[in-house]
């Protein structure tokens, strides 16, 4: 169980974490979803006792992150955004060193290492140097390392950043397996909406250090109000469009209409599959051919629509090419560029 209380972190001229309060239950996959620079990683680093908050605190399994940091460290595992294993060593050696650092007793050490390797599917590559691993395998080794000491909470910071779609799906499979087999609480940060949607029991939307919405993915999407219909139209006079939009508003299954100035009418409705034909019929019948429908589509709301609703912005995906993929020298080259 994790309890975050009035957590606040300020850097010189930037508020990275702005008064966050969250309770996370055992056995939950909790997602922190937000654009890059929203404060996700800072929040994770504070919870993992790597950064001290400016004010406020949090408890993990009842241990305070400031006054009981050593106990917090023993009970959590963390997978950083950039792989942090030593790539000159083998996968097994990395695990052995960390099991010593985490006091895994010597009589069960080998068994634990075997178990976690099995869990992430790296048993047959355990004696290869990490520099020979693919990006996805490195991430999985990090997860194995995070599980060595049987933590009750594990933090995954952008677990699939920079992975190709295939490896990403494999990673999702392993994350789901963790919750089922290890009975562990997972806190993951991501800026991929589908990832959060697929994996998380609850999602906290984070933007500029603040939690702006927090609920289960389905509830968040329901909050948008039904499905979304986009009708692209051609028209001569904007007032004609105004008129028709006002009429559509009177259907009881329509929640709201927006953005029609550009010629695309966005309508939030219940049961779009059944109600869309009535809307189209209505438009046809009452506009006397003054307004022509060019195209129609409807879709269920995504988490991006939720973010859009709260912030007026999209969660961008531009950061991908800067992902922490590759070996030490690649990362060094990246660092040198900066």
């Amino acid at each position, binding site marked *: 169980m994790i309890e975050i209380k009035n957590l606040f972190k300020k850097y010189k001229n930037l508020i990275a974490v702005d008064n966050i309060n969250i309770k996370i239950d055992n056995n939950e996959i909790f997602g922190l979803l937000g654009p890059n620079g929203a404060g996700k990683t800072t929040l994770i680093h504070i919870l993992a006792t790597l950064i001290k908050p400016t004010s406020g605190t949090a408890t993990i399994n009842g241990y305070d992150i400031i006054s009981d940091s050593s106990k917090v460290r023993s009970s959590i595992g963390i997978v950083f955004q950039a792989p942090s294993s030593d790539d000159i060593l083998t996968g097994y050696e990395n695990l052995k060193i960390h099991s*010593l*650092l985490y006091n895994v007793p010597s009589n*069960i050490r080998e*068994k634990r290492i075997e178990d976690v390797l099995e869990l992430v599917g790296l048993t047959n590559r355990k004696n290869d140097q990490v520099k020979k691993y693919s990006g996805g395998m490195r991430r999985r080794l990090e997860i194995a390392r995070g599980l060595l000491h049987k933590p009750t909470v594990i933090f995954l910071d952008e677990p699939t950043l920079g992975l190709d779609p295939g490896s990403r799906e494999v990673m999702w499979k392993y994350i789901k397996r963790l919750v089922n087999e290890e009975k562990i609480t997972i806190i993951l940060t991501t800026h991929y909406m589908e990832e959060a949607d697929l994996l998380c029991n609850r999602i906290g939307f984070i933007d500029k250090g603040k939690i702006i919405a927090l609920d289960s993915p389905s509830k968040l999407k329901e909050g948008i109000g039904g499905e979304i219909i986009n009708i692209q139209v051609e028209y001569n006079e904007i007032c004609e469009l105004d008129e028709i939009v006002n009429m559509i508003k009177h259907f009881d299954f329509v929640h709201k209409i927006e953005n029609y100035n550009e010629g695309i009418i966005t309508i939030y409705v219940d049961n779009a599959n059944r109600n869309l034909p009535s809307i189209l019929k209505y438009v046809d019948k009452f506009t006397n051919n003054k307004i022509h429908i060019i195209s129609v589509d409807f879709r269920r709301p995504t988490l991006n629509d939720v973010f859009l609703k709260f912030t007026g912005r999209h969660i961008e995906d531009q950061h991908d090419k800067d992902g922490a993929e590759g070996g030490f020298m690649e990362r060094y080259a990246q660092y040198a560029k900066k």
Partner: protein
Amino acid sequence: MVPKVALWRDMHNMQKNNNKSFKFDLELGKIYAIWLREFKVFLREKSRLVASTFTPLLWLFVLGGGLGSTVSTPFHASNIDYQKFIFPGIVIMSVIFSSVFFGAYIIWDRKFDFLKSVMVAPVRRSTIFLGKTFGGMTTSLIQAFILLGIGVFIGVNYTPYSIASFIVIVLMLSFALTSLGLAIGSYMESLEGFQLIVSFVVFPLYFLSGALFPLDNIPIWLSILTSINPATYAVEALRSSMLGVDGKNILIVNIGVLLITTLALGIVGILSFRRMKAV
């Protein structure tokens, strides 16, 4: 899954055990873990070992052989030529380079996040520090031993006493200088500062140590600089125990200064590690 549950309970019981000696064992295990990683990396990076052995050989044979053919040492009577005279100095040079660089390499550990993964484990900063320094001492000692073997070819004779004091001196100096390197590295954010360490730490330590010249007749300004350099005392101690050549200070003074330096730099290193930021 009965065995898993049993293991889980075992671990909990172990962690609940607050016995002091048990805790001490655990810290030793963690120091061993950090040391093990350094040692494995050292064994695997053969190019580093080859490069760091080759440079001292250049000094010993090219400078020692070349310059040695024209200069004479004050110890010709005891059959010590220039090459033999600088041999202990070259050993100390190898220790200076490998120890300071080893310490400063912590910048790389931080750059590729390995250090972060260690710092998020329940490990004391002083434990990380000690594991690292022991790693540096091991590396320096192995390289010094390779040079010791080469010493046979230039006619250096060893006694059990000279080898024992060789080990003690090398270990003390490498502890001190690995600590120094780690302390500097813990303050540096970027690799650009590495060149500064080479110019302002490594080379002055070497050139101002009397590794290459006797300290008896040097100008006063140089004499002041050499006497505040801890490596000077290591060179003198090593020269006296290996070649029977006495320098400016007697052996006990040399060892005393080395010991104080070692302790002082060790403390500086631990304090720097305590305040080092994790991310």
